[in-house]
């Protein structure tokens, strides 16, 4: 006799294995690059700093300080003059550290920081639902060929054989005839339906800090840029609300102070430096990234519209062994058996976790032994028919 392993508590997504990727659903991703881009676009496209210089108003270039040499020297929007010296003013963005702690640089998270086993992002009717609705005929349609209706049986009395080109079912719930309770109207009767549930791994929260520098030629230019920035700030939180290209909303928090760097007291050998510097913090998250090495992150699951409560009749005591199976038992379970997959002897659909205790008498001695047998039942719906002493007889089924 061997013990069955008790199935672990199942979570819907465990390490995102499996290949149940939804066919027609695409969740935009958000990662570090998207957050960088959002900050860059804030300065480059949304705020669009402008300064007045020699009677002209011109825009201020923004650079994300990571560029390769060739890209910087051959920029389509030139940052440099013919002698390859920077044309001021400039705005530079440098990404600093990444805070992965629950504190998130003091900004916290909107939902639980600790990763949950799964994260449901969408619940919609499954494409299998249409066929299912035909089978249960919720509206009680009587004279339609492709729904469950009594008239669609050849042998109506015994409910045998569907007519050619017709659909019907012996399910005992509703809809064999048009009933007073049936409703035909435009209200969505979303109750007994098959749902598709789409999940993604829980977002990984990161808080990114950026160092922003306004590098100016003149004090007047610096004043204009700082005034413009502060005027554009969304009070009262001193923040900017931005959206990534994928549609994820992020909040960019500005630091509490703007430092002013200059070399006015020692610029004998250097050019005059006017720099304003401040921090920005972006609490963000990594979700559904398309990083190489990671599988597609979304997973699709189908709901069970019915829960089957079945009453069985057995003629021996039913036992449930709660002892976990040892490694030795796992191996010996396969001894002297046909080649089997290690998962093959686990509880399958149509099998119960319980065992039947049966006493086997030894005819050659006045003794016997108890053996524990796995329960198998018949399932006419799936075409299975098992003849065995272990087979239990079903008394009734009740669907909820």
């Amino acid at each position, binding site marked *: 006799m061997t013990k069955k392993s008790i199935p672990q508590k199942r979570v819907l997504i465990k390490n995102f294995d499996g290949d149940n990727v939804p066919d027609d659903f695409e969740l935009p991703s958000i990662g570090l*690059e998207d957050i*960088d*881009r959002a900050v*860059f676009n804030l300065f480059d496209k949304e705020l669009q700093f402008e300064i007045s210089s020699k009677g002209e108003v011109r825009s201020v270039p923004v*650079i*994300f300080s*990571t*560029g*390769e*040499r*060739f*890209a*910087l*020297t*051959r*920029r*389509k929007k030139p940052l440099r003059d013919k002698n*390859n010296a920077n044309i001021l003013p400039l705005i530079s963005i440098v990404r600093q550290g990444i805070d992965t702690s629950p504190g998130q640089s003091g900004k916290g998270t909107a939902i639980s920081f600790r990763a949950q086993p799964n994260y449901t992002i969408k619940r919609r009717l499954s494409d299998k639902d249409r066929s299912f609705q035909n089978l249960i005929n919720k509206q009680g349609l009587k004279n339609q060929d492709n729904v469950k209706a009594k008239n669609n049986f050849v042998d109506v009395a015994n409910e045998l054989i569907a007519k050619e080109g017709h659909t019907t079912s012996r399910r005992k719930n509703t809809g064999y005839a048009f009933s007073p309770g049936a409703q035909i109207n435009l209200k969505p009767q979303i109750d007994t339906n098959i749902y598709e549930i789409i999940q993604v791994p829980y977002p990984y929260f990161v808080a990114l800090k950026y160092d922003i520098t306004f590098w100016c030629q003149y004090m007047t230019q610096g004043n204009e840029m700082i005034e413009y920035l502060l005027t554009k700030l969304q009070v009262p939180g001193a923040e900017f609300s931005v959206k990534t290209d994928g549609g994820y909303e992020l909040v960019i928090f500005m630091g509490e102070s703007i430092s002013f760097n200059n070399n006015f007291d020692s610029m004998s050998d250097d050019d005059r430096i006017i720099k304003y510097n401040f921090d920005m913090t972006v609490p963000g998250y990594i979700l559904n990234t398309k990083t190489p090495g990671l599988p597609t992150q979304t997973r699709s699951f189908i709901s069970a519209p019915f829960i089957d409560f079945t009453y069985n009749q057995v003629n021996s005591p039913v036992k449930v062994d709660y002892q976990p199976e040892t490694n030795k038992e796992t191996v010996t379970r396969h001894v002297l058996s046909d080649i089997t997959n290690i998962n093959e002897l686990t509880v399958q659909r149509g099998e119960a976790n319980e065992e039947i205790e049966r006493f086997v008498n030894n005819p050659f001695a006045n003794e016997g032994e108890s053996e524990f047998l796995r329960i198998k039942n018949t399932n006419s719906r799936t075409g299975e028919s098992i003849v065995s002493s272990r087979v239990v007889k079903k008394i009734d089924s009740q669907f909820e």
Partner: protein
Amino acid sequence: MPRLFITPREINFINDIAKEVIKDVIGQKIYLFQISEFKSKVHDVYEESQDKVFDTPIELDCLVKYSGQQVVTDRFGSEKVFTIEVYIQARDLLDKGIEILEGDFISYGSVFYEITKAPSTDIIMGQIEHERFITISGRQSRKDLFLSKVFGPTSETYTDDDAVQETFVQQRGFKNNKLGATGDVRDLQKNGVLDTPITGPKEVSSKGDSTNVGSSFYDDE
């Protein structure tokens, strides 16, 4: 030096002499790979490109200050890195319409270098409009940064046809020599101060070696 004594003719003379030394005597060359900002797919925020597309490589005559491999040991272990310094005549670049920028790549031998600095280094006789040469500083580029076909000469240890340069052909102001287009311009010839050399470009090759020991200067036509 006063402009009274250093006229444009002297400037041309100085440039021509420099070209003669570099192109007709020394014979060192590098290959310049200029990254095309239009053909390369450059990241719009990070301004980087993992797949750089370069224009047709250009052979440039130059003086090379070769530095041996430097061994750098850090937390990743030791690695060997080449650096290089190349001097290119400014007038030659002007004649060929080439502008060398930081971030371009050069090859010398089998090693590719990223140009880290390419400043204008000197002017001729204090005349600001006449640059003497630019100095290119390069650092060996990693394989993932830049990779291309290798042009010889590379090393005696290789078996490629062009691994060892056995033929050196002068240019002497001719548009073409035995190896193809030169792009060489000698200003004194161009301005009619000097005649074109009657005997044409000479070469060092096996043609001049009657003993079959190796290449030698082939002078007598």
